Protein backbone atom coordinates (compact mmCIF):
# COMPACT_ATOMS: atom_id res chain seq x y z
CA UNK A 1 0.00 0.00 0.00
CA UNK A 2 2.71 2.41 0.97
CA UNK A 3 4.51 2.20 -2.34
CA UNK A 4 1.37 2.54 -4.40
CA UNK A 5 0.13 5.53 -2.53
CA UNK A 6 3.48 7.14 -2.04
CA UNK A 7 4.00 7.64 -5.76
CA UNK A 8 1.49 10.40 -6.02
CA UNK A 9 2.65 12.15 -2.89
CA UNK A 10 6.33 12.00 -3.64
CA UNK A 11 8.24 15.09 -2.58
CA UNK A 12 11.78 15.82 -3.59
CA UNK A 13 14.11 15.77 -0.59
CA UNK A 14 15.07 19.14 0.77
CA UNK A 15 18.63 20.15 1.40
CA UNK A 16 19.68 19.88 4.13
CA UNK A 17 17.15 17.25 5.13
CA UNK A 18 16.54 17.04 8.82
CA UNK A 19 13.52 16.07 10.85
CA UNK A 20 10.90 18.62 11.91
CA UNK A 21 11.61 17.77 15.52
CA UNK A 22 14.39 15.71 17.11
CA UNK A 23 13.70 12.03 17.60
CA UNK A 24 15.77 11.82 20.74
CA UNK A 25 17.56 13.98 23.24
CA UNK A 26 20.43 13.47 25.61
CA UNK A 27 19.66 15.30 28.82
CA UNK A 28 22.19 15.90 31.53
CA UNK A 29 19.66 15.91 34.34
CA UNK A 30 22.29 16.74 36.91
CA UNK A 31 25.74 18.26 37.12
CA UNK A 32 26.43 16.36 40.32
CA UNK A 33 28.39 13.12 40.46
CA UNK A 34 29.58 10.93 43.31
CA UNK A 35 32.75 10.05 41.39
CA UNK A 36 35.54 12.16 39.92
CA UNK A 37 36.89 10.03 37.10
CA UNK A 38 40.23 11.18 35.76
CA UNK A 39 39.14 11.29 32.15
CA UNK A 40 35.59 12.59 32.58
CA UNK A 41 34.58 14.75 29.60
CA UNK A 42 31.87 16.44 31.63
CA UNK A 43 33.68 18.21 34.44
CA UNK A 44 36.33 20.91 34.17
CA UNK A 45 34.84 22.50 31.10
CA UNK A 46 35.29 26.25 31.65
CA UNK A 47 32.49 27.04 29.21
CA UNK A 48 29.83 25.06 31.12
CA UNK A 49 27.70 26.25 34.06
CA UNK A 50 27.45 23.43 36.62
CA UNK A 51 24.00 24.01 38.07
CA UNK A 52 20.97 21.75 38.47
CA UNK A 53 17.42 22.66 37.50
CA UNK A 54 14.53 22.05 39.88
CA UNK A 55 12.09 19.22 39.23
CA UNK A 56 9.34 21.45 37.86
CA UNK A 57 11.57 22.86 35.13
CA UNK A 58 12.30 19.40 33.80
CA UNK A 59 8.66 18.34 34.00
CA UNK A 60 7.57 21.40 32.03
CA UNK A 61 10.21 20.62 29.42
CA UNK A 62 9.12 16.98 29.20
CA UNK A 63 5.59 18.19 28.42
CA UNK A 64 7.03 20.19 25.52
CA UNK A 65 8.97 17.17 24.30
CA UNK A 66 5.81 15.07 24.44
CA UNK A 67 3.99 17.60 22.29
CA UNK A 68 6.82 17.44 19.75
CA UNK A 69 6.66 13.65 19.48
CA UNK A 70 10.14 13.02 20.84
CA UNK A 71 10.62 9.27 21.20
CA UNK A 72 13.55 8.68 23.53
CA UNK A 73 15.52 10.52 26.19
CA UNK A 74 18.98 9.48 27.31
CA UNK A 75 19.46 10.64 30.87
CA UNK A 76 23.04 11.51 31.63
CA UNK A 77 24.97 13.80 33.92
CA UNK A 78 26.90 13.96 36.11
CA UNK A 79 25.46 10.80 37.54
CA UNK A 80 21.71 10.65 36.86
CA UNK A 81 20.97 8.30 39.75
CA UNK A 82 22.14 10.98 42.17
CA UNK A 83 18.87 12.90 41.66
CA UNK A 84 16.54 12.30 44.58
CA UNK A 85 13.52 13.18 42.44
CA UNK A 86 14.35 10.64 39.73
CA UNK A 87 11.03 8.72 40.04
CA UNK A 88 9.09 11.97 39.58
CA UNK A 89 11.14 12.82 36.50
CA UNK A 90 10.61 9.34 35.06
CA UNK A 91 6.87 9.68 35.64
CA UNK A 92 6.98 12.88 33.62
CA UNK A 93 8.76 11.11 30.76
CA UNK A 94 6.35 8.18 30.77
CA UNK A 95 3.33 10.48 30.93
CA UNK A 96 4.56 12.16 27.77
CA UNK A 97 4.75 8.89 25.83
CA UNK A 98 8.53 8.70 25.68
CA UNK A 99 11.04 5.99 26.44
CA UNK A 100 14.30 6.55 28.27
CA UNK A 101 17.82 5.22 28.80
CA UNK A 102 20.58 6.05 31.26
CA UNK A 103 24.30 6.69 31.10
CA UNK A 104 25.53 5.83 34.58
CA UNK A 105 28.51 4.80 36.64
CA UNK A 106 26.21 2.21 38.21
CA UNK A 107 27.29 2.82 41.77
CA UNK A 108 24.05 4.36 43.09
CA UNK A 109 21.60 1.85 41.65
CA UNK A 110 19.66 0.02 44.34
CA UNK A 111 16.64 -2.30 44.40
CA UNK A 112 14.18 0.49 45.02
CA UNK A 113 15.02 2.57 41.95
CA UNK A 114 15.57 -0.53 39.81
CA UNK A 115 12.09 -1.79 40.71
CA UNK A 116 10.64 1.59 39.84
CA UNK A 117 12.38 1.67 36.47
CA UNK A 118 11.30 -1.87 35.66
CA UNK A 119 7.74 -0.94 36.57
CA UNK A 120 7.58 1.80 33.95
CA UNK A 121 8.19 -0.66 31.12
CA UNK A 122 9.79 2.19 29.18
CA UNK A 123 13.48 1.77 29.88
CA UNK A 124 15.56 1.04 26.80
CA UNK A 125 18.65 0.20 28.81
CA UNK A 126 21.00 1.42 31.47
CA UNK A 127 24.57 1.89 30.25
CA UNK A 128 27.05 1.31 33.05
CA UNK A 129 30.71 2.18 32.74
CA UNK A 130 33.08 -0.68 33.51
CA UNK A 131 36.72 -0.11 32.70
CA UNK A 132 38.40 -3.25 33.98
CA UNK A 133 38.11 -6.92 34.76
CA UNK A 134 39.25 -6.14 38.28
CA UNK A 135 39.07 -3.33 40.78
CA UNK A 136 42.70 -2.44 40.11
CA UNK A 137 42.14 -1.41 36.48
CA UNK A 138 38.67 0.05 36.95
CA UNK A 139 39.38 1.99 40.12
CA UNK A 140 42.63 3.44 38.76
CA UNK A 141 40.69 6.21 37.07
CA UNK A 142 37.30 6.02 38.79
CA UNK A 143 38.22 5.86 42.44
CA UNK A 144 38.56 3.18 45.08
CA UNK A 145 35.52 0.99 45.59
CA UNK A 146 33.78 2.06 42.40
CA UNK A 147 34.30 -1.32 40.66
CA UNK A 148 32.45 -3.33 43.29
CA UNK A 149 29.66 -0.77 43.43
CA UNK A 150 29.29 -0.72 39.64
CA UNK A 151 29.04 -4.51 39.57
CA UNK A 152 26.47 -4.43 42.33
CA UNK A 153 24.48 -1.95 40.25
CA UNK A 154 24.67 -4.18 37.17
CA UNK A 155 23.54 -7.23 39.11
CA UNK A 156 20.68 -5.25 40.61
CA UNK A 157 19.54 -4.19 37.15
CA UNK A 158 19.83 -7.76 35.88
CA UNK A 159 17.79 -9.01 38.84
CA UNK A 160 15.03 -6.62 37.83
CA UNK A 161 15.35 -7.65 34.18
CA UNK A 162 16.35 -4.19 33.03
CA UNK A 163 18.52 -4.14 29.94
CA UNK A 164 22.14 -3.43 30.84
CA UNK A 165 24.79 -2.32 28.44
CA UNK A 166 28.38 -1.65 29.43
CA UNK A 167 30.72 0.97 28.06
CA UNK A 168 34.44 0.35 28.42
CA UNK A 169 36.52 3.49 28.17
CA UNK A 170 40.05 2.53 27.22
CA UNK A 171 42.99 4.35 28.78
CA UNK A 172 46.58 3.72 29.78
CA UNK A 173 45.63 1.66 32.83
CA UNK A 174 43.33 -0.87 31.16
CA UNK A 175 44.63 -1.13 27.60
CA UNK A 176 46.46 -4.36 28.46
CA UNK A 177 43.40 -5.76 30.25
CA UNK A 178 41.04 -5.84 27.25
CA UNK A 179 41.12 -9.64 26.82
CA UNK A 180 40.21 -10.10 30.46
CA UNK A 181 37.54 -7.39 30.27
CA UNK A 182 35.82 -9.10 27.34
CA UNK A 183 35.93 -12.46 29.09
CA UNK A 184 34.66 -10.94 32.31
CA UNK A 185 31.76 -9.01 30.77
CA UNK A 186 30.63 -11.52 28.16
CA UNK A 187 31.41 -14.85 29.78
CA UNK A 188 31.34 -14.24 33.52
CA UNK A 189 28.66 -11.52 33.78
CA UNK A 190 26.76 -12.93 30.81
CA UNK A 191 26.12 -9.59 29.17
CA UNK A 192 24.95 -9.87 25.56
CA UNK A 193 27.45 -7.27 24.39
CA UNK A 194 29.43 -4.19 25.33
CA UNK A 195 30.73 -1.09 23.61
CA UNK A 196 34.10 0.62 23.71
CA UNK A 197 35.54 4.06 23.40
CA UNK A 198 38.76 5.65 24.59
CA UNK A 199 39.48 8.59 26.82
CA UNK A 200 39.35 11.76 24.77
CA UNK A 201 40.94 15.15 25.21
CA UNK A 202 37.99 16.83 26.90
CA UNK A 203 37.10 18.15 30.35
CA UNK A 204 38.98 16.54 33.21
CA UNK A 205 40.96 14.43 30.79
CA UNK A 206 42.78 17.55 29.58
CA UNK A 207 44.22 17.93 33.07
CA UNK A 208 45.30 14.29 33.29
CA UNK A 209 46.10 13.66 29.63
CA UNK A 210 49.65 12.42 30.18
CA UNK A 211 48.50 9.77 32.63
CA UNK A 212 45.32 8.72 30.86
CA UNK A 213 45.33 9.13 27.08
CA UNK A 214 46.60 6.30 24.92
CA UNK A 215 49.86 6.93 23.11
CA UNK A 216 50.45 5.64 19.60
CA UNK A 217 51.80 2.26 20.74
CA UNK A 218 48.89 1.78 23.11
CA UNK A 219 46.42 2.68 20.39
CA UNK A 220 48.01 -0.01 18.23
CA UNK A 221 47.63 -2.51 21.06
CA UNK A 222 44.00 -1.50 21.64
CA UNK A 223 43.11 -1.73 17.96
CA UNK A 224 44.78 -5.10 17.45
CA UNK A 225 43.28 -6.56 20.60
CA UNK A 226 39.76 -5.31 19.90
CA UNK A 227 39.82 -6.45 16.29
CA UNK A 228 40.91 -9.89 17.47
CA UNK A 229 38.22 -9.94 20.17
CA UNK A 230 35.48 -9.04 17.68
CA UNK A 231 36.36 -12.23 15.83
CA UNK A 232 36.29 -14.24 19.02
CA UNK A 233 32.95 -12.67 20.09
CA UNK A 234 31.13 -11.92 16.80
CA UNK A 235 28.58 -9.12 17.08
CA UNK A 236 29.14 -8.62 20.80
CA UNK A 237 31.69 -5.80 20.88
CA UNK A 238 30.79 -2.50 19.29
CA UNK A 239 31.97 1.09 19.11
CA UNK A 240 31.05 4.36 17.53
CA UNK A 241 34.42 5.96 18.28
CA UNK A 242 37.79 5.02 19.72
CA UNK A 243 40.30 2.31 18.81
CA UNK A 244 37.86 -0.26 17.45
CA UNK A 245 36.18 2.27 15.16
CA UNK A 246 39.54 3.69 14.10
CA UNK A 247 40.94 0.21 13.50
CA UNK A 248 38.04 -0.78 11.26
CA UNK A 249 37.80 2.54 9.47
CA UNK A 250 41.53 2.95 8.87
CA UNK A 251 41.79 -0.58 7.51
CA UNK A 252 39.06 0.23 4.97
CA UNK A 253 40.72 3.52 4.12
CA UNK A 254 44.10 1.93 3.58
CA UNK A 255 42.64 -0.77 1.34
CA UNK A 256 40.74 1.83 -0.69
CA UNK A 257 43.80 4.04 -1.08
CA UNK A 258 46.08 1.15 -2.03
CA UNK A 259 43.63 -0.03 -4.69
CA UNK A 260 42.88 3.52 -5.86
CA UNK A 261 39.17 3.00 -5.24
CA UNK A 262 36.59 5.76 -5.76
CA UNK A 263 35.94 8.11 -2.88
CA UNK A 264 33.64 6.84 -0.13
CA UNK A 265 30.13 8.31 -0.42
CA UNK A 266 30.73 10.43 2.67
CA UNK A 267 34.47 10.86 2.12
CA UNK A 268 36.43 14.03 1.53
CA UNK A 269 34.16 16.30 3.56
CA UNK A 270 33.34 16.96 7.21
CA UNK A 271 30.67 14.27 7.40
CA UNK A 272 31.88 12.58 10.57
CA UNK A 273 28.94 13.75 12.65
CA UNK A 274 25.34 12.96 11.74
CA UNK A 275 23.87 13.87 15.10
CA UNK A 276 22.29 17.25 14.25
CA UNK A 277 19.85 15.60 11.88
CA UNK A 278 17.90 13.65 14.48
CA UNK A 279 18.98 14.47 18.03
CA UNK A 280 20.00 17.28 20.31
CA UNK A 281 21.17 17.72 23.91
CA UNK A 282 20.38 19.73 27.00
CA UNK A 283 22.90 20.62 29.69
CA UNK A 284 22.14 20.32 33.40
CA UNK A 285 21.60 24.07 33.64
CA UNK A 286 18.98 23.98 30.88
CA UNK A 287 21.10 25.22 27.99
CA UNK A 288 20.20 23.57 24.71
CA UNK A 289 23.34 22.43 22.91
CA UNK A 290 23.86 20.39 19.73
CA UNK A 291 25.65 17.61 21.59
CA UNK A 292 27.28 16.93 24.95
CA UNK A 293 30.60 17.05 23.13
CA UNK A 294 29.79 20.60 22.00
CA UNK A 295 28.64 21.82 25.41
CA UNK A 296 29.96 25.33 24.80
CA UNK A 297 27.63 25.94 21.88
CA UNK A 298 24.48 27.31 23.54
CA UNK A 299 21.55 27.36 21.14
CA UNK A 300 18.86 28.41 23.59
CA UNK A 301 17.40 27.61 26.98
CA UNK A 302 14.62 25.18 27.86
CA UNK A 303 11.25 26.63 28.88
CA UNK A 304 12.43 29.96 27.56
CA UNK A 305 13.07 29.15 23.92
CA UNK A 306 10.88 26.83 21.88
CA UNK A 307 12.80 23.64 21.16
CA UNK A 308 11.10 23.31 17.78
CA UNK A 309 12.19 26.85 16.91
CA UNK A 310 15.75 26.17 18.01
CA UNK A 311 15.77 22.86 16.14
CA UNK A 312 14.52 24.32 12.89
CA UNK A 313 15.98 27.81 12.84
CA UNK A 314 19.05 28.09 15.06
CA UNK A 315 21.79 29.58 12.86
CA UNK A 316 24.49 27.74 14.80
CA UNK A 317 22.74 24.41 14.49
CA UNK A 318 22.11 24.91 10.80
CA UNK A 319 25.75 25.87 10.37
CA UNK A 320 26.69 22.60 12.07
CA UNK A 321 24.35 20.74 9.73
CA UNK A 322 25.95 22.30 6.70
CA UNK A 323 29.36 21.23 7.96
CA UNK A 324 29.13 18.21 5.69
CA UNK A 325 29.60 20.50 2.68
CA UNK A 326 33.07 21.58 3.82
CA UNK A 327 35.78 19.87 1.82
CA UNK A 328 38.76 18.45 3.67
CA UNK A 329 40.92 19.70 0.81
CA UNK A 330 40.33 23.24 2.14
CA UNK A 331 42.34 22.57 5.28
CA UNK A 332 46.05 23.08 5.53
CA UNK A 333 45.96 20.26 8.07
CA UNK A 334 44.92 17.88 5.28
CA UNK A 335 47.21 19.25 2.55
CA UNK A 336 48.67 16.49 0.40
CA UNK A 337 46.89 13.69 2.25
CA UNK A 338 46.11 10.69 0.06
CA UNK A 339 43.38 9.51 2.43
CA UNK A 340 41.13 12.55 1.87
CA UNK A 341 38.63 10.75 -0.44
CA UNK A 342 37.99 8.21 2.31
CA UNK A 343 38.10 10.45 5.38
CA UNK A 344 35.13 12.07 7.21
CA UNK A 345 37.01 14.41 9.54
CA UNK A 346 35.40 12.66 12.52
CA UNK A 347 33.96 14.25 15.68
CA UNK A 348 33.50 18.05 15.75
CA UNK A 349 33.58 17.98 19.56
CA UNK A 350 37.13 16.66 19.64
CA UNK A 351 38.05 18.95 16.76
CA UNK A 352 36.92 21.88 18.89
CA UNK A 353 38.82 20.92 22.04
CA UNK A 354 41.98 20.16 20.07
CA UNK A 355 41.96 23.02 17.56
CA UNK A 356 39.46 25.57 18.89
CA UNK A 357 37.40 25.14 15.72
CA UNK A 358 34.26 23.10 15.22
CA UNK A 359 34.55 23.22 11.43
CA UNK A 360 37.84 21.40 11.32
CA UNK A 361 38.83 17.73 11.04
CA UNK A 362 39.66 16.12 14.36
CA UNK A 363 43.43 15.66 14.67
CA UNK A 364 42.81 12.78 17.06
CA UNK A 365 41.17 10.76 14.30
CA UNK A 366 43.75 11.60 11.63
CA UNK A 367 45.07 8.40 10.13
CA UNK A 368 47.99 10.09 8.38
CA UNK A 369 49.16 11.66 11.62
CA UNK A 370 48.80 8.32 13.41
CA UNK A 371 51.01 6.64 10.81
CA UNK A 372 53.57 9.46 10.84
CA UNK A 373 53.79 9.10 14.62
CA UNK A 374 54.73 5.42 14.31
CA UNK A 375 51.28 3.86 14.12
CA UNK A 376 50.39 0.99 11.83
CA UNK A 377 47.26 -0.39 10.22
CA UNK A 378 46.45 -3.77 11.70
Amino acid at each position, binding site marked *: *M*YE*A*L*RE*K*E*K*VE*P*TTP*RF*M*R*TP*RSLTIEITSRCNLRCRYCYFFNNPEVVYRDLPTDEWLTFFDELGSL*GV*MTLTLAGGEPFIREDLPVLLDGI*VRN*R*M*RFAFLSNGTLIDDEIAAFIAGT*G*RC*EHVQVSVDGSSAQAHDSCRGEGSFEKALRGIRTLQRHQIGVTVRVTIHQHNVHDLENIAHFLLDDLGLPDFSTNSAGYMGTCCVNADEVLLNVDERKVAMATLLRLTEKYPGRISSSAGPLTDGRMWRRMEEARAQDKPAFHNGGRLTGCGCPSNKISVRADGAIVPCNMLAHMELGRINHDSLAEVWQNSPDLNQLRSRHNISLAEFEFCAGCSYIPYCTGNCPGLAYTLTGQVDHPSPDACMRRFLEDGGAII
Partner: protein
Amino acid sequence: MKQTDRPIANPIVVLREEFDDWAVLFNADTAAAVGTNPVGVAVWKLMDGKRDIEGIVSEIKNSFEDTPDASGEEIAAFVGILAENGFVGMEQDSN
Protein backbone atom coordinates in the same frame (compact mmCIF):
# COMPACT_ATOMS: atom_id res chain seq x y z
CA MET B 1 -19.90 -4.21 25.19
CA LYS B 2 -19.67 -5.24 21.58
CA GLN B 3 -16.71 -4.73 19.30
CA THR B 4 -17.49 -2.59 16.28
CA ASP B 5 -15.69 -2.43 12.93
CA ARG B 6 -14.61 1.15 13.60
CA PRO B 7 -10.85 1.35 14.18
CA ILE B 8 -9.55 3.67 16.86
CA ALA B 9 -5.92 4.73 17.27
CA ASN B 10 -4.14 3.56 20.42
CA PRO B 11 -3.68 6.80 22.40
CA ILE B 12 -0.25 5.73 23.58
CA VAL B 13 1.03 5.77 19.99
CA VAL B 14 2.89 8.92 18.94
CA LEU B 15 2.60 10.25 15.41
CA ARG B 16 5.82 11.95 14.30
CA GLU B 17 5.52 13.76 10.99
CA GLU B 18 9.25 13.91 10.41
CA PHE B 19 9.39 15.10 6.82
CA ASP B 20 6.87 16.24 4.21
CA ASP B 21 6.82 12.72 2.81
CA TRP B 22 7.58 10.61 5.84
CA ALA B 23 6.10 9.98 9.26
CA VAL B 24 6.62 7.46 12.04
CA LEU B 25 4.08 5.89 14.35
CA PHE B 26 5.79 5.01 17.60
CA ASN B 27 4.43 2.86 20.38
CA ALA B 28 6.28 3.97 23.50
CA ASP B 29 5.15 0.90 25.45
CA THR B 30 6.63 -1.62 23.04
CA ALA B 31 9.21 0.55 21.23
CA ALA B 32 7.66 -0.62 17.96
CA ALA B 33 7.69 1.90 15.14
CA VAL B 34 6.07 1.97 11.73
CA GLY B 35 7.04 4.33 8.95
CA THR B 36 4.40 5.69 6.66
CA ASN B 37 3.62 8.30 4.01
CA PRO B 38 1.14 11.20 4.01
CA VAL B 39 -1.73 8.92 3.03
CA GLY B 40 -0.96 6.66 5.97
CA VAL B 41 -0.90 9.73 8.19
CA ALA B 42 -4.30 10.77 6.90
CA VAL B 43 -5.64 7.28 7.55
CA TRP B 44 -4.19 7.38 11.06
CA LYS B 45 -5.87 10.68 11.83
CA LEU B 46 -9.22 9.32 10.64
CA MET B 47 -9.13 6.36 13.01
CA ASP B 48 -11.15 8.03 15.72
CA GLY B 49 -13.59 5.21 16.43
CA LYS B 50 -16.36 6.98 14.54
CA ARG B 51 -15.68 5.66 11.04
CA ASP B 52 -15.45 2.15 9.67
CA ILE B 53 -12.86 1.21 7.03
CA GLU B 54 -15.27 2.06 4.27
CA GLY B 55 -15.77 5.52 5.73
CA ILE B 56 -12.05 6.04 6.00
CA VAL B 57 -11.49 4.96 2.39
CA SER B 58 -14.18 7.34 1.29
CA GLU B 59 -12.55 10.23 3.14
CA ILE B 60 -9.16 9.39 1.62
CA LYS B 61 -10.60 9.31 -1.89
CA ASN B 62 -12.06 12.73 -1.28
CA SER B 63 -8.80 14.11 0.03
CA PHE B 64 -6.29 12.70 -2.49
CA GLU B 65 -6.34 12.90 -6.26
CA ASP B 66 -5.99 9.88 -8.53
CA THR B 67 -6.45 7.35 -5.77
CA PRO B 68 -5.63 3.87 -7.12
CA ASP B 69 -8.48 1.40 -7.55
CA ALA B 70 -6.92 -0.89 -5.01
CA SER B 71 -6.66 1.78 -2.35
CA GLY B 72 -9.57 0.36 -0.35
CA GLU B 73 -7.88 -3.02 0.00
CA GLU B 74 -4.55 -1.39 0.74
CA ILE B 75 -5.99 0.79 3.47
CA ALA B 76 -7.75 -2.21 4.99
CA ALA B 77 -4.49 -4.13 4.95
CA PHE B 78 -2.66 -1.17 6.50
CA VAL B 79 -5.18 -0.93 9.32
CA GLY B 80 -4.97 -4.69 9.79
CA ILE B 81 -1.19 -4.53 10.22
CA LEU B 82 -1.51 -1.69 12.71
CA ALA B 83 -4.15 -3.64 14.63
CA GLU B 84 -2.00 -6.78 14.73
CA ASN B 85 0.83 -4.74 16.24
CA GLY B 86 -1.22 -2.98 18.87
CA PHE B 87 -1.28 0.44 17.21
CA VAL B 88 -5.01 0.29 16.63
CA GLY B 89 -8.00 -1.26 18.35
CA MET B 90 -11.67 -1.52 17.48
CA GLU B 91 -14.14 0.80 19.13
CA GLN B 92 -16.43 -0.86 21.66
CA ASP B 93 -20.13 -0.25 21.32
CA SER B 94 -21.95 0.12 24.60
CA ASN B 95 -25.32 -0.65 23.00
